[in-house]
């Protein structure tokens, strides 16, 4: 297959950056999007052109490291990460525009590589369980209703890739924050510090300069882990309750 690529090239964090035109020739239909870029990069290297910088790690859809916006959609068409996107999804001869994730809190490092440490700092603010949870308890010794377990499990699928904030017209990280809060706050191990977690994570997200959720639901549409936007409702509810509890000094 053959593709006409428009790729964002930027020398460094302070560089201006612009789209450069490249041709991707002889691409197998079964190549993943990142493999296609590997082939293009080999070609560029042979021509003496600096290869395109992009993030990737596991290449099996679980690490959340690849971060490309393809034709305006983070991770490109379909559900899944960029590494799980195959070139057969595109038309032969199609023009493909590749840009880095765009959000003020995800500064571009170079080309298609963005710095997503803001998500790490949100996790550090409260996305954990302080107590040692110990070894796995005996089955059924801690009863958790199936609906609650399912909800927590669905939210736990978040890989923190940043596509939600990148897709959001407001650059809001609410889907990420709410996935973590839902995942940790619903289960017995995470419940004891739920209020503090909710308050700290939301405040950290605000501090990082992420935008506010306008309920566009673009995040839900691009999330490779299929996190539903209803977790944001869960977060909103918990944040308001935690705030009320904080104002009268009964936060857990």
């Amino acid at each position, binding site marked *: 297959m053959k593709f006409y690529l428009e790729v964002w090239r930027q020398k460094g964090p302070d560089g201006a950056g612009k789209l450069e035109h490249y041709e991707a020739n002889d691409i197998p239909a079964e190549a993943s999007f990142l493999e296609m870029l590997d082939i293009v990069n080999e070609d560029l290297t042979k021509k003496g052109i600096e290869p395109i910088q992009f993030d990737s790690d596991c290449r099996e859809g679980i690490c959340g490291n690849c971060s490309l916006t393809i034709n305006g959609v983070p991770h490109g068409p379909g559900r899944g990460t960029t590494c799980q996107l195959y070139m057969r999804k595109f038309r032969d001869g199609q023009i493909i525009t590749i840009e880095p994730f765009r959000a003020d809190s995800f500064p571009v490092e170079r080309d298609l590589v963005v710095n997503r440490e803001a998500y790490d700092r949100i996790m550090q603010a409260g996305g954990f369980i302080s107590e040692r949870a110990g070894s796995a308890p005996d089955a059924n010794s801690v009863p958790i209703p199936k609906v609650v377990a399912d909800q927590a499990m669905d939210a736990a699928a978040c890989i923190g890739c940043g596509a939600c904030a990148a897709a959001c017209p407001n650059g809001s990280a609410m889907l990420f924050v709410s996935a973590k809060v839902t995942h940790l706050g619903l289960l017995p191990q995470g419940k004891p510090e739920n209020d503090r977690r909710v308050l700290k994570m939301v*405040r950290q997200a605000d501090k990082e300069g992420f935008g506010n959720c306008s309920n566009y639901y673009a995040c839900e549409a691009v999330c490779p882990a299929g996190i539903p936007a209803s977790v944001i409702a869960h977060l909103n509810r918990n944040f308001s309750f935690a705030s009320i509890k904080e104002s009268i000094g009964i936060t857990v």
Partner: protein
Amino acid sequence: MISAPSQSRSGPHPIFLWLFSSIGKKTVVALSGIVLVLFVTGHLLGNFTIYLGKDWLNWYAEHLQSLGPMLWVIRLFMLATVGAHIFFTMLLWKENQAARPKKYIASDPVGTSVFARTMRLSGLIVLGFILFHLAHFTVRIVDPAFQHMDTMLDGHEVHDCYRMVVTGFSNVPVSILYIVGLFLLMMHLSHGIGSLFQTLGLTNRRIHPLIETVTRAYAWLLYIGYISIPISVLTGIVK
């Protein structure tokens, strides 16, 4: 060890922390939105008295006017509600602009609805429409003749609201302005009503699609209800 209470009272009061947090600001917009949706609903129910006949609408209008000082309390409350709705939306918008300074060159509004993307525009046009509506039927300066339309009701002289509405909507451009203005209101509510359930956390994965459908249908019902009045006047059903 018992840890120290997490609230140290050195910073701003938790209420302010909440109010000016991302979610607090959204909550103010949602709560003021509820008041405005209830107002729009009550207003429409009152308007429907036009279909019961001249005396019913005039009786309803006269009762509203006879609230006296209470009417001004309600008006000031509505003004404050609209003010808070707009002020907090603007605060949110300013932050959202800063959070996404660089737009995608190849833009694809995946997953979003046209109603959601046009909220600020539809809201501002609706604001303009409301100002016109107030000038038209409340302050009555668009057509000053409205100020001197009086009629008898139960032996008293009252303002002839019915005649004013029929005269007002007999003007085709004015009726079209109402139909367009209300369409923008419908667009705004199509996203807004469902959105407030999400913002207040009154939804979950299962009922979310139902809430979206029902609230959108509700926005359309309000629209149909409202535009039925100028259309009835123009088609001569109400005269």
